[in-house]
Every structure is written in structure tokens, then in C-alpha cells.
């Protein structure tokens, strides 16, 4: 079956056209967005290809997401071997559920990263009694230094905006928010690792999240 491969071939075969994919009926998502870049086939199209058993779509999807899934898993579990297990399990789950994935529910990237995060947090809780010290967490270090993570600067506006909002928070709120949102640390765990009272951890988290919510959504319709 030619599946998504045929789609890609076609897209490559028709250069120089004005965007041949007009806005779809609003109940569906049209699947081709851009051409002449790695992103020429949308995540949704690749998922449809995976659901249809298309090997090419599966491979493209893996290549598109492996650095993000592995990077997230590695950041959380701190061990390359466990991170590989987690990232592979996440991919397998995604493949199994590609057919029933509902594009209206969430963006594909959100879905796959959430699966990865939750698997990584589970793996950590199962395998380790004491979580990694925040000083060893790459992302916590990054947000403590105001340096954007690799790829963020050149990434989508949304990511850049989220990054700006995050780095505009007071440093202590920033650390609490990242420890909870990315690493799945509970308020009690954050209190311990940051050496602060539980109430302080909870309020930093809450205040940080509310400020981010305001910043992320204020420019949205």
C-alpha cells in the first residue's frame, strides 16, 4: 500500500504551485500544511498513515519525534537506558492508538509528549526511591539561567511565547512550575528538594501557573 508515501510523492511532484490545499470544511483538518521542508506532511497525516499500517509514515513519525520524546524522557528519568525504554514504549503506545486518536481532542505533539511524560514519571516512581536532585535536571538548570532550550528560539511562536512567559516569572516560581509540570514532582517533593515549607511550594506553584495562564492566553482570542 502506498499510503502516506503517495501523498509525499505528490507533494514533491507539484512544486511552485500556490498552496494547493485550501482551508478545509471546518469539521475536518486538512492534512497537508507546508511543502519543501521536513514538515511538509502534517502530524495528523502521518498518524493516519500509521493507522493504515504504512511503514513510511511510521518511520517519518519516529524521525520527527524521537529527539523530543527521548529528550523529555531523559530529562525526567536521568538515565539514557531507562529513557530509551520509556521513549520506545511511548512510541508503541502512539502507534497502537493512532487509529483511534481524535484530532479534535488535542494537538498531536501535546498528546505524544503527555504520554511520554506520564510513562517517564511512572518509570521513575517504580525504579527509584529518591528522585534526581533538581540541580541535575537539565530543564530546571536551563530555566534558572534564562537561556532558551535548544530549538525553542527557532521554533513556533507559541513555544517562544511560552518560553518568554516562563522566564518572566520570579526564579523560585519558575523552578516550582517546571519541577511540577515537566518532571511531575508533587508539592511535597518540591518542598523537600527546594528546602521550603509545603505551603510555600504550593503557593509558588499556584501563583506561577496563574501568571503563565494569563500570559499565554492574553493574546489569544
Amino acid at each position: 500500500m502506498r499510503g502516506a508515501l503517495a501523498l509525499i510523492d505528490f507533494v514533491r511532484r507539484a512544486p511552485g504551485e500556490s498552496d494547493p490545499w485550501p482551508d478545509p470544511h471546518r469539521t475536518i483538518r486538512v492534512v497537508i500544511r507546508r511543502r519543501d521542508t521536513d514538515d511538509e506532511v502534517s502530524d495528523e497525516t502521518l498518524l493516519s498513515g500509521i493507522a493504515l499500517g504504512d511503514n513510511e509514515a511510521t518511520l517519518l513519525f519516529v524521525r520527527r519525534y524521537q529527539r523530543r520524546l527521548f529528550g523529555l524522557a531523559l530529562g525526567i528519568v536521568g538515565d539514557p537506558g531507562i529513557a530509551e525504554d520509556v521513549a520506545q514504549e511511548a512510541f508503541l503506545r502512539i502507534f497502537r492508538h493512532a487509529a483511534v486518536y481524535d484530532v479534535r481532542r488535542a494537538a498531536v505533539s501535546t498528546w505524544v509528549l503527555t504520554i511520554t511524560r506520564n510513562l517517564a514519571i511512572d518509570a521513575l516512581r517504580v525504579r527509584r526511591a529518591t528522585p534526581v536532585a533538581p540541580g541535575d535536571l537539565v530543564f530546571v538548570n536551563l530555566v534558572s539561567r534564562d537561556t532558551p532550550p535548544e530549538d525553542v528560539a527557532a521554533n513556533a511562536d507559541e513555544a517562544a511565547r511560552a518560553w518568554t512567559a516562563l522566564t518572566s516569572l520570579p526564579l523560585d516560581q519558575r523552578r516550582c512550575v517546571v519541577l511540577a509540570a515537566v518532571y511531575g514532582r508533587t508539592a511535597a517533593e518540591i518542598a523537600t528538594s527546594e528546602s521550603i515549607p509545603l505551603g510555600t511550594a504550593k503557593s509558588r506553584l499556584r501563583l506561577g501557573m496563574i501568571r503563565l495562564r494569563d500570559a499565554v492566553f492574553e493574546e489569544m482570542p
Partner: protein
Amino acid sequence: MTNSNPECVEVSTVLSEFALGILTGRERSRVLAHVALCPQCRGELDALSAVGDRLVELAPRAEPPVGFESRLLDRYHGESARQPVRALRGVALVAAAVVLVAAGFTLGHHAPTQRPNTPSLSTAAPISEALTSAGRTLGQVWLSAGTPTWIYMSFDDAGWSGTAWCTVTLKNGHVLDVGVFNVVHGYGAWAAQVNAASSAVRSARVTDAKGHVLASATVST
């Protein structure tokens, strides 16, 4: 928030923790029960969850170990060839598998042959039908098993160019507009999600802007 309902105020103190999946026990149950009934807090929860998703997207990437891709694909293809149901956990997932497998088996004489003893969730047989016009095959349409279903179509040397409108007719007689795509020099390929079960689809039809039927496919049952 200006809500003065005491329960809302109380829930708001831990809503961020709940949104990030780090709340446990009684506190978690209380938030769940409250947001089920309170649209205002549910809206706030959705916004905070979206913030959490954005933060996860910012996590740094990392290059997976050498051989990651091939190990993953080996596992995936090994799993597809064996019993993928083994990997399913929980009643809901098994139920989903049953639906998928049932859809794959009951529909479409053209569905790729699949041995009944080795049903595969990830590659549940898509339905494939020729898109024809006056007996001539112009392209192909695929429907993935499940709900919602992915519809995927391609045209090869269809002999015309222009905007194509795709509609799907369900067995209950309802007609769904699926979307619009372009065919250039006879070639086009496109995919979209249809908010219906694949088993409910009777036929797909492609028309031009004036409603003339360019090609159609009937799903055999």
C-alpha cells in the same frame, strides 16, 4: 478569579496541582467531583492544563542512542506480527481493540487479508476501495478502522485538474462534507478525519465545484 463560592475558592488553591497531574488522594477526588459540576472551575482547569502542555513542549531535546530507531521499529513490527492484545492493559483498551478488529473484519472485501487468529490493533485492516468514474479507476480511497475514521484518498492520472469536494454517505443516509482538496494534472492525495465509524460508511464521492460527480467509491460490506 472573582468567584466567591467557598468551594470554588478552596478548589482554586490546588487546581494547578490537579491540572499538572501531581495531586493525589482525597484532594484529587474533591477537585474531580467539583469540576464535574462547576463549569467555571472546569474552564480554569482547561486553561491551566493547556499551560502545563506548553511547558512540557519546551523540554529540551536530546539525540537518542545509536540504533534507537531500528530497535523501536523491530519491536513494533514484532509486536504487530505477534499478539498485540498482549500489550493492552485495562478493560477499556481491550474493548477498543474488539471494536477495531470487528470493524476490520466485517467490512470490505478489499480489506487486506488478515489471519483471524492474529488480529492486530495497530494495523487493523483499513478498507480500501477504488474511486471510479464510468467504470474507469481514477484513484483509491482508504478508511481506517475505528471511530472517528481516517479517510485517505489518492488520484493517479485522473485526467483533470481542479478543486475536488469530498462527501461521505453513511449507511443511515446522512451525507457528511469531508473537505476540499486540489487535484493537479490528474494527481492528488489527501486525508481527513471523518466523525463517524468506518463501519457506518456506505460510500465516498468526489465532485467538482458545481456538484458533478468526478469519481465515487462504494464500500462493500
